[in-house]
């Protein structure tokens, strides 16, 4: 609930980081989030860390979600983290999904990505995780 007593819709930025063009998964997740009633801003392909940070700030999103399929998730997230922190976005829910080898999950968590959804994750699980974890920020 916000000041006016109305439930605010959860607002998600869903970004395709780097040069990867595989957007089938990102678009599926975007649709699942929309069906769940979230407001989704899908960036399209080839977002730089600076663009992800800027849109997150301007759109005042609750969730910053990345979809990465081509293996450059760690170098990208290392650049993104300080930018999001500099913009005061560390209290937002940071998620990443896609082709993310298990051996990289700890490093992604250390970079601030609380929700990690590798290939094989269920759409409902992603939606439920967001509802569960974003509540305190939206309320």
């Amino acid at each position, binding site marked *: 609930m916000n000041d006016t007593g109305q439930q605010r819709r959860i607002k998600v930025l869903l970004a395709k980081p*780097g040069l*990867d063009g595989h957007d*089938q998964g990102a*678009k*599926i997740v975007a*649709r699942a989030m929309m069906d769940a009633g979230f407001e989704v801003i899908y960036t399209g392909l*080839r977002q730089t860390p600076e663009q992800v940070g800027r849109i997150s700030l301007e759109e005042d999103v609750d969730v910053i979600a990345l979809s990465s399929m081509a293996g450059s998730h760690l170098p990208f997230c290392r650049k993104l983290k300080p930018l999001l922190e500099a913009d005061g976005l560390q209290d937002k829910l940071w998620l990443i999904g896609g082709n993310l080898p298990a051996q990289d999950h700890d490093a992604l968590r250390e970079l601030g990505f609380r929700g990690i959804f590798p290939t094989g994750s269920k759409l*409902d699980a992603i939606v439920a995780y967001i509802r569960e974890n974003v509540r305190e920020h939206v309320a």
Partner: protein
Amino acid sequence: MNDRAQSTLKIITNESGLEVKPLYTAADVEESGGTTMLGEPGEYPFTRGIHREMYRKQPWTMRQYAGFGNPHDTNQRFKYLIANGQTGLNVAFDLPTQIGLDSDDPLAAGEIGRVGMSIDTLRDFEVAFDGIDLDKITVSMTINGAAAIAIAMYLAMAEKRGYDVKKLRGTAQNDILKEFIGRGTWIFPVEPSIKLVGDTIEYCAEHAPKYSPVSVCGYHIRESGATPAQEMAYAFCIAKAYADEVIARGLAVDEFAGRLSYNFNIFGNLFEQVCKFRAGRSLWAKIMKEEYKAEKPGSMWLRMIAAGGGGGLTFEQPELNIVRGAYYALISALSGTQTMALCSYDEAYTIPTEYSARISLRTMQILIEEMGMTETVDPLGGSYYVETMTNRMRDKMEEIIAETDAQGGIVKLVSEGIIQAKVSAQAYQMQRDIESGKFPKVGVNRYRNEHEDEHPVEFHPYNEDDARVQVDGLNKVRAERDSEHVARTLAAVSEAARAGANVMPAIVEAVKAYASVGEITKELVKVYGRYQEPIRF
């Protein structure tokens, strides 16, 4: 029908939306249009195959997708695959190369050599193909946005090594319209992108007439969510768009159509796939003969690579993908493909290791050596089911093409993001159906393992040092080349683009001067601008 009313069997439809009956008889074949579109192998309309003797004369080409790191690494993998009996190469380029960025471009950081080999200049092509006999091993290049540059580099490299470019065979993917639908390695806006494809077709028709400058890919449209019938129908719409572009320049259809080729996907129902290919072969022949008035049989041939697709493989129980790959290879052989490739079992995780790539290669070799798959042409021909479904699939594809044309044509629908939204909605529904168990997937929604990590996949190592080596190599070339000559050839590229002329001759000269992929791309961007992706749900 009466028998259905009495039956308690539930109605089954395939992914393309066609009903599959429990039994087919001669009456079904007749009802679906009979055998008027069947013909003999090697004869119009080529339903049974584009050649009379097919694999009896020569087995399909085996062409695993390969490439990573720098050109030296990739050259080693090529030689490994050839030593293991592979008969063609399919080159994977890294993302910076595919979208026209040099390895020292800030946007390329973290992506160099990751999903394919990194290429900056002609020097890299020389290293990548060193020691490989380009007459014996045909090379296919999976590159689209920057395809014109890659073709120029390939031809220049071959010429430098003494090959007669007039006789040189090979293929570039160079299908930009499908990149806008899925895969996403576009650079320029839609209109100049199609113009560039036209430039490569026109250039090759004159200078490299045995080279296939385009391989139209239903494959990635299928991966993005299209049904098998849509996969082929949209591919034909795209091929027609390229043909129209070239014909508008005054080329006769028989001057270039024989070098158009196709890339299709295999996963899902075996019979639906086989019938898709048989139907597609005759439909393409009909389109070329009746609509385009082609006269040479070669212009009517649906020459293709039919590849076991990643979309069918699963992250869960990855070793089952070896079994799926074997079925996909069987389908490919039963479908009369010219070239075959398989996604390897670990590709839901990583780029294939030598080990997994070899398993894919051996899978195809077992079909050739042990299963009798090369002995008889179109072995499923004459089956009531296969002939009926082939007719029905052809009707379905024609319906989709007519619908696409009625809505303004494929170029308009892709430019506006309408095809993208349509296949993406289908992909979403399929994902929901897999998660609910409605669409069966073994290991995913059936027969799951308690411990999914029983057979961990070995990850292909990414060498962080490759990027530095690649950038050093680029700097070395820049220091050694004649920079004034490079500048002149680069200026000629944008001049040709501005004049609306064919840019290929200028790109070939720039490439020979060791201008880089990024430098040439920037010249074209000056004139063409960059694509803005339509976001539509």
